[in-house]
């Protein structure tokens, strides 16, 4: 990486210490996730305001079915746990076990996406039906985009953890750490989204 940490390293060694980079990159990613969370916060604020200020016509109100979204919530929460197990195993140097947990997390993420698609196709309203429908699809769609990206990241990390030849090892695990932080973030957003969209 060209990420320099020159203040703490002599000039000729700048760019050598991987440990320092990991620190700053995780910090940078966390800052980015704050920004990302603000995007969701904007969407949530818009949704709640619409709900309070722009009541729907009678007959345009849908009772959302809960079983599928509850299943989705469980899928994501379990995948967060499995990802955590993957990280623990990697730090112990057990790449094979780590990869199994990663694969499981990715499968859970993809299952979430599949189940979300099932929900989309069974819902009685479309994107442009009314304000509520549009906001529902915008919110879940934007979150689904995040899950898609996250699942891709997990698969990439899974590939990079291969032994021998993978670049992720017990000592150099920034990509796994980054993907894990991102995945937990996407989970957390889902929980808030679930409460706001389905329960309130």
């Amino acid at each position, binding site marked *: 990486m060209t990420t320099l940490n*020159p203040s*703490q390293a002599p000039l000729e060694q700048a760019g050598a210490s991987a440990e320092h980079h990991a620190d700053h990159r995780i910090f940078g990613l966390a800052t980015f996730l704050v920004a990302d969370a603000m995007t969701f916060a904007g969407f949530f604020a818009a949704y709640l305001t619409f709900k309070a200020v722009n009541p729907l016509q009678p007959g345009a109100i849908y009772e959302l079915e809960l079983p599928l979204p509850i299943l989705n919530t469980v899928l994501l929460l379990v995948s967060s746990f499995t990802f955590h197990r993957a990280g623990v195993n990697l730090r112990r140097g057990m790449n094979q076990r780590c990869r199994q947990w990663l694969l499981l997390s990715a499968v859970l993420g993809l299952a979430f996406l599949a189940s979300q698609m099932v929900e989309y196709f069974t819902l009685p309203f479309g994107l442009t039906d009314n304000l509520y429908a*549009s906001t529902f699809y915008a919110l879940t769609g934007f979150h689904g985009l995040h899950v898609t990206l996250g699942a891709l990241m997990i698969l990439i990390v899974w590939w990079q953890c291969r032994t021998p030849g993978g670049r992720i090892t017990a000592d150099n695990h920034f990509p796994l750490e980054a993907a894990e932080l991102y995945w937990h973030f996407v989970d957390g957003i889902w929980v808030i989204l679930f409460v706001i969209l389905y329960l309130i």
Partner: protein
Amino acid sequence: MTATLTPQAESSRPPSLQPHGWLRYLSFSVDHKVIGLQYLVCGFAFYLIGGALAGAIRTELASPLSDFMPREVYNQVLTLHGTVMIFLWIVPVVNGAFGNYLIPFYVGARDMAFPRLNAVAFWLIPPAGLLLISSYFITGAAQSGWTAYPPLSLTTPAIGQIIWILSVLLLGGSSIFGGINFIATILKLRRPGLKLMQLPMYCWAMLGTSILVVLSTPVLAGTLILLSFDIVAHTGFFNPGMGGNVVVYQHLFWFYSHPAVYIMVLPAFGLVSEILPVHCRKPLFGYATMVVSIMAIVVLGLVVWAHHMFTSGTPPWMRLFFTIATAFIAVPTGIKFFNWLATLWGGRISLNSAVLFSCGFIVNFVLGGITGVALAQVPFDVHVHDTYFVVAHFHYIVYGGSVFVIFASIYHWYPKVTGRMLNEPLGRLHFLITFIGFNLCFAPQHWLGLNGMPRRVAEYDPQFAFINQLSSVGALLMAISTLPFLWNVIASAFQGEIAGDNPWRALTPEWLTSSPPPVENWRGEAPLVTEPYGYGVAADELDLKAASGRDLWSSGR
């Protein structure tokens, strides 16, 4: 991408002076100084374009009829003018240009925390700017102003509006990447031993600004994505005809765009706080109160947005809250103003171009600040909302404030960047014409607004003709003022007097290296400057390399 290897390649051999090849300014360089200059030059190019658009506006308004261009074109021109000046000139220059150039010096680092992200952030800007301007030639640019309020933005031609949204999204992304980089650099990359409260004030200003960027820009991005859905997919988020709510757009838009004012002006506060102590030979007055007031502005700046919406049917409690919150901002801003005055007070001021522009900033900014407090009061705001009074107010903030500081900063740091001095008489001429032109252009607009001339119109009541012509003459002067400046910066780069390392005898770290600085900023260790404002003793007693202000301050007086 070959250029991404530069820092590693260069760090493996002894540091040398920067290579003089100008091509690296067109490359994907990861050197923070190169990126800073890329931001500055690119921003200035867009300033000239935005200025030409302003010239077109003032030409049109020199007569009451829309005879210079059709009204649709006028709408496009004013939209482009606002967008270019905000997103392509002031925000990138006060943040990206000076931030990238100075922040690594100030924290004692050899580069930013994420040099490649930094280069990516810069290189998003030229394509976004070209995209925006090209829309004018393709199908006609957006016509709904820089605010893009629906339903106007939904009913004007769609392609121009979509291109506008795309380019603003790109610029917002660039801004967020930049903000992340500044936060990480200031908080994580400080030289060991350098405490936060020992940093030059510009670091604090950039930290506060970057927090605002990271918290508010994403909200604008989300809002514009929803707006583009309304345009492309015919959803009805902001379309009252489909049950949508335009006021929600305004809330979300101003949640970014009010902090955007501070994103444009807080770095300018920081830059002035660097310039004044050097040329007054006095420490910055009230360091701690400066820091606290910057952070207070950051917090308050996030909760005042609805003062832009007093005529949008906001309920009384909201008007009350946002009026009071806005009035509160005058307190930290006033503290900063008096701190600058106290810094000037009793100092041995050398009245050069940098100081003249800084003092011009203080004068203009106070005028803009006073009209700002006035506009925060609902009864007054309802009267002058969307009139030329508002136009005058915010130009006093963004031009009289930020742009004056950009010029002051160029006069101050030009010797460091190029190694040569600027021509001082030309600089003073530049200041004189700019100051007169600016005030002639915008002061009369207060009168226009108070008497009811609405903004964003190509035609107006003939009774306003004379004042508008006065304003247009001021705009012409502002255009002319660019000429001595351009001549100065170009000619001085070749024939200016050699500056030496530290022509101002300043104490902040960027002056404690050669001019221009070597690739990784210092040969050898970065200096530990714990008292960046330790002025107050005669020059011959001053050991710049080992300057510790507290000693100097106590012994020198």
